[in-house]
């Protein structure tokens, strides 16, 4: 019973025999299959995460999970101690001792894994010399309870867009990590998150604007246009998913079975074409396919994220990604086939799945930076849910309210972005 693997390397959901599990509220030991905690009476959701023995008794360690939301403590600009190509760990003269690949910055391939059910990986790709994607994620330990996934894709024709994208993603996470108003109803929470996403988009935009005010002046930096990036954020809140976006980074909901969907709708020239009746294949491969019509940054006319929400009725994957991934599998059905297949190989572990998706995109050519953020959603059954009525969970799909409709209807489209 004391041979527990550390939680951060264990394939996530579902305790198995022999694993030690604890109550996420009070840290009391629990048994697989327990419906509630014997110590505090807290409901125990399915798929509770095993934890290492030495952390379970840490006073307050798990009783205030919100205070322990992780950020990335390392300097992303420093060189990675692990080879991006072969995972080797010894370097000489700036090259991997095993495969000869140059040592790269941590930013070229890094991962955030705030909880066993949430992970994100960002990778430079094959063709680009720098990773201009930014990302920031956070999560509470209990699966499905609370997660924040933010991906920002720096526009490569603008200067310092890598600084803008990372600053924007982290600023948005910081806003979204603040305690939300205590509302029980689904509609109330969606409404609260809609407001919070607007604020997050605003704070993210400030970072991009700030990057434009203080150019880094790094050698070789392009000077064509001020820093710009996309914005795609998803919030998981006990059975509710609320999303917001600006630009063409995407949010997909991929249930384990049934119809997958792209929750975001690109602010891009290609999408405008598709809406106008041009076939997707043709529009996404046209000369201006990658021109975005909305973005964050000093020269952006409109930075308010478009928002949407869902109450999923079955287990699945919430996926936020940059176009480095979806370029190779744009339709939700194609991506779902890929994700479901790779999820099996990854044994349901979001970290492994994210890495496999990155590897897959690189194998397709890796023409752009690739960022994938994933949350494993296993909905809380109605009778044990936190403030989700049976009504709401049995009528899944779009949880729109009148206020939300207003936002969706006014989804603004700016002028064609000069940044291709």
């Amino acid at each position, binding site marked *: 019973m004391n041979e527990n693997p550390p939680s951060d390397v264990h394939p996530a959901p579902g305790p198995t025999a022999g694993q030690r599990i604890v109550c996420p509220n009070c840290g009391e030991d629990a048994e697989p299959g327990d419906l509630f905690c014997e110590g505090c009476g807290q409901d125990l959701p399915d798929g509770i995460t095993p934890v290492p023995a030495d952390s379970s008794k840490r006073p307050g360690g798990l009783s205030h999970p919100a205070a322990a939301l992780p950020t990335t403590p390392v300097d992303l600009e420093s060189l990675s101690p692990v080879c991006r190509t*072969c995972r080797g760990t010894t370097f*000489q*003269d700036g*090259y*991997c001792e*095993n*495969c*000869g*690949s*140059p040592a790269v910055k941590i930013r070229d391939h890094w991962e955030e894994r705030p909880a066993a059910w949430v992970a994100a990986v960002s990778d430079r790709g*094959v*063709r*680009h*010399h720098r990773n201009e994607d930014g990302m920031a994620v956070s999560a509470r330990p209990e699966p499905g309870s609370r997660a924040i996934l933010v991906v920002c894709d720096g526009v490569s024709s603008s200067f310092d867009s890598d600084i803008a994208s990372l600053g924007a993603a982290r600023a948005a996470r910081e806003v979204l990590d603040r305690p939300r108003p205590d509302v029980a109803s689904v509609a109330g929470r969606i409404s609260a998150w809609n407001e919070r996403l607007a604020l997050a988009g605003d704070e993210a935009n400030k970072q991009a604007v700030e990057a434009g005010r203080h150019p880094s002046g790094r050698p070789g930096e392009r000077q064509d246009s001020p820093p710009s990036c996309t914005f795609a954020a998803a919030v998981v809140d006990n059975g509710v998913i609320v999303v917001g976006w600006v630009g063409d980074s995407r949010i997909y909901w991929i249930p384990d079975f049934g119809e997958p969907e792209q929750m975001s709708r690109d602010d891009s020239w290609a999408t405008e074409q598709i809406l106008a009746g041009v076939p997707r294949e043709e529009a996404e491969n046209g000369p201006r396919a990658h021109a975005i019509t909305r973005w964050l940054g000093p020269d952006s006319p409109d930075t308010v994220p478009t928002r949407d929400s869902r109450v999923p009725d079955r287990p699945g994957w919430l996926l936020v990604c940059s176009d480095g991934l979806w370029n190779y599998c744009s339709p939700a059905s194609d991506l779902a086939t890929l994700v479901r297949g790779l999820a099996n190989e990854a044994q349901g572990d979001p970290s492994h799945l994210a890495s496999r998706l990155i590897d897959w995109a690189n194998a397709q*050519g*890796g023409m752009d930076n690739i960022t994938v953020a994933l949350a494993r959603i296993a909905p809380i059954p109605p009778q044990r849910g936190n403030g989700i009525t049976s009504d709401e969970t049995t009528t899944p799909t779009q949880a729109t309210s009148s206020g939300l409709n207003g936002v969706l209807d006014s989804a603004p489209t700016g002028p064609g972005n000069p940044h291709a």
Partner: protein
Amino acid sequence: MPSFSAEVFQNEFISEGATDVHAIVSVTCAGAGEAGRGEGGEAAEIIIVDTSGSMLDAKIIAARQAAAVAVDQILDGTWFAVISGTHVATRAFPYPNARVSMVQMEPGARAAAKDAISRLEADGGTAMGSWLKLAGQLFDTVPQATQRHAILLTDGQNQSEQPYQFQAAIESVTGRFQCDCRGVGADWDVAELRHVSTALLGTVDLIANPAAMAADFESLMQKAMGRGVAEATLRVWAPQGSHLLWVRQVSPSVEDLTSRKVEVNPLTSAFPTGAWGDESRDYHVAVRVPPQPVGQERLAARVQLLVQDSVVSQGLVKARWSGDDALTTRIDPAVAHYTGQAELAVVIQEGLAAKAAGDEATATTKLGRAVALAAETGNDEATSKLRKVVDIDDPATGTVRLKRSVDKLDEMALDTASTKTTRVNKR
């Protein structure tokens, strides 16, 4: 203290799908000091003189003089011996009845050795394998001498032992000492002696006129005494999944080192390079690496020189895949130059072998190619030696005719000089 430096010449840009990376690594040693006086241990020298029956008259007189001159060049304190070689090997000095196999040079020993050398007489056959084996045994008596070098002089072919015996003898002494080989007159076999010198990290040359022997021995021994670094190893790392195609010394002479490879670990190979004086040596390293997408970079090889197990210098060979033809199609001038010089050595040797076998068509083609390569790479010495073997109609296209009567010595001079390269004009 000796100091080493390494410089790499290559075009690191290769095209999409390309796998082969070529580089010239130029290693220079300065401040080598004198043999046996550095940190590497003491030095030992053996002079091996052919005293077979064919070494009559002028040849044995010249050989005695040359050996005596060489003895003069050996630094005091150096362990040394003289071997008289016929169908058997005899220690001429220290005298066969002496209790020690090698002595340290000092004025008394020098005078005694010269006296012994003056008594050398020509009589008997030629069994070079036995000479080399005796040299190995003598060197073994002075384990404190880590820098071991011999000069072997002969005038004939190895007729008194079977080829397998000769081969076994060469293999038994490989790695135990270095040996420079010299052939006097026109009756010895260049390929046979080159086989010895290549295995024993030495040189081979022709002394056409016995009168030139003394000067040659003097300079050989001076060079040997100027090698203050007893032993250096070339070490080459190449990444996982790659294949080291070859490591070839290309200057001052062409020597393929690939057969001397010793595996250090699955990714690293070591090649012995013998003793170093103040000099530069260039190496052509060719690696086949797994192809990578355009835009990727890999370290294709790390080339290091090691002295007493420490790295004294290194050069990095890189590969960068590019879609820009302007970058990828340029061949590095040093790589091009030495590729041509290495081919020059091969076509000269093959051309002369074909000529000796009576295959005039192949000989004409090969030597014609040699003429073109020598012209292309500016190897004037090779060109002038080729002129004595073929009539050149057009050096650019390598159009030549075999001369009807050729002095055997001119052919041998061309053969022995074939591996000597001219340095490239580096940027």
